[in-house]
């Protein structure tokens, strides 16, 4: 079997990303790596730059400077090679409201070039308890149901890299727990890499291997949940989050955010 050097490279790599909107610097020299097969959380308060960073990593937003690399390749130069292996879920980016769940999944399945699409939709619908909703227009779904459809769409192409913005927002505790288990099982089965922005610290502690903490457009700390708990002397990730967001705990890492992950 030929040696594939790309397998040694991180699944996701941000290199000195900067994004300015006029006078406002939304992302300020962010560098990080996400290792293959890990689930990593991107945390930070509102306006910390998480969504901007995710948007750059997905190619929706062009950085002012710096580079986004996915699966070892530059997103700018190899977009068409990368995007079929990537997907994205967010409760804040809608699917077409007038189409039924099945129609939306069929359209997106075709966009990703999925083979055996009909069976795939049935299987995902079963996994996410959408069987009875397949013929219902998206606009008639509850917020929780829409989140499950967004997850189904995100998994339609069996992505190697999955970006998620608050994957369990709007789900009741039972469904949220089920969705987390599903994501973990998917990751374990496929070896996929998941980068997720979340405000749910319980979720982060439970399923994430690594955490990237953002504040004011910079990576200010990172590590596994266990490492961060130990470093801040806290019992929960929520307390760690508050320490960092409110700058109650000045950590040396914060002085060199651009080096995060290096």
């Amino acid at each position, binding site marked *: 079997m030929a040696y594939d050097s790309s397998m040694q490279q991180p699944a996701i790599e941000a290199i000195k990303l900067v994004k300015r*909107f006029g006078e406002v610097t939304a992302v300020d020299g962010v560098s990080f790596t996400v290792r293959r097969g890990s689930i990593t959380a991107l945390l930070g308060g509102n306006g910390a730059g998480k969504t901007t960073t995710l948007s750059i990593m997905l190619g929706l*937003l062009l950085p002012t400077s710096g580079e986004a690399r996915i699966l070892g390749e530059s997103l700018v130069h190899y977009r068409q090679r990368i995007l079929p292996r990537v997907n994205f879920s967010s409760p804040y980016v809608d699917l077409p409201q007038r*189409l039924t769940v099945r129609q939306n999944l069929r359209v997106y399945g075709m966009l990703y070039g999925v083979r055996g699409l009909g069976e795939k939709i049935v299987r995902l619908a079963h996994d996410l308890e959408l069987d009875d909703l397949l013929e219902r227009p998206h606009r008639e779904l509850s917020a929780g149901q829409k989140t499950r459809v967004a997850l189904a769409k995100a998994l339609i192409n069996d992505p190697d890299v999955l970006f998620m913005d608050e994957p369990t927002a709007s789900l009741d505790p039972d469904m949220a727990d089920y969705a987390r288990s599903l994501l973990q099982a998917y990751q374990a089965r496929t070896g996929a890499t998941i980068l997720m922005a979340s405000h749910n610290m319980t979720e982060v502690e439970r399923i994430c291997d690594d955490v990237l903490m953002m504040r004011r457009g910079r990576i200010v700390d990172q590590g596994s949940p266990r490492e961060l708990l130990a470093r801040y002397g806290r019992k929960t990730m929520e307390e760690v989050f508050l320490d960092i967001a409110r700058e109650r705990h000045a950590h040396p890492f914060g002085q060199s955010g651009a080096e995060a992950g290096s």
Partner: protein
Amino acid sequence: MNAAVLGSAERVAAMLLRYGYLLRGSWPRLLELVYWPTVQMMLWGFMTNFLVTNSTWVAQAAGVLISGVLLWDILYRSQLGVAMMFLEEMYARNLGQLFVSPLRPLEWVISLVTVSLLRTLISFVGASLLAILFYHFSIFSLGFPLIFFFFNLMVMGWAIGLAVCGLVLRYGMGAESMAWVAIFALAPFTGIYYPIGSLPAPLQVFAHLLPSSYVFEGMRAVLIQHVVRYDLLRNAVALNVVYMVLGTIAFLIAFRAARVRGMLIHVGE
């Protein structure tokens, strides 16, 4: 056919399916396709009936006004077809999902113009059949030049539609109304119902920069003089090549600007 082309074709097919679902699921959208051309055609048809006995110019060719209406509607429908399907994505706030998929902007453009072609064909054929029914005038009597007229007007409509889409991408939904009104700004100057020569001299210069002016002049040449003016068709084709290139470039530049400004995520707000 290589894998890249097949992949592209499948993504275009996916977008056509998406727009097909949209039209199929909404009867007002289907009704809208034939409503306005039918109203226009009837208005100008009755006007023609009156003028045929009161105007020597119209009496030369009774179909000249109805043909003008039907051909003008091709231009309007083709522009609107592109712009409306584009705006559907804005209303649905769907651009973020679409462009994290492998869909290329140019593939989206191809799907938009294809849907526009299908919508315009439905609209045009429907109104043309009603013209035969009500006024015993068949625009198909124009013969094969009708094909040239049709595609020249289609392409010009696409070009303007893409430029309008670019404006919306650049300036947000505040520019949405351009989709409805942009084409009407050209109507007085392009000689739909009267010869370009009847315009004031400075406006004639402007009219000659519009591919549609040559189409309408060509239409009158067929109906009144019974000649096919290939020189007019050639001018229309040449201008349309320029229009389509400029329209596509304007759209792609605006799309890139939208990626710089974050409009793909925040559009609709």
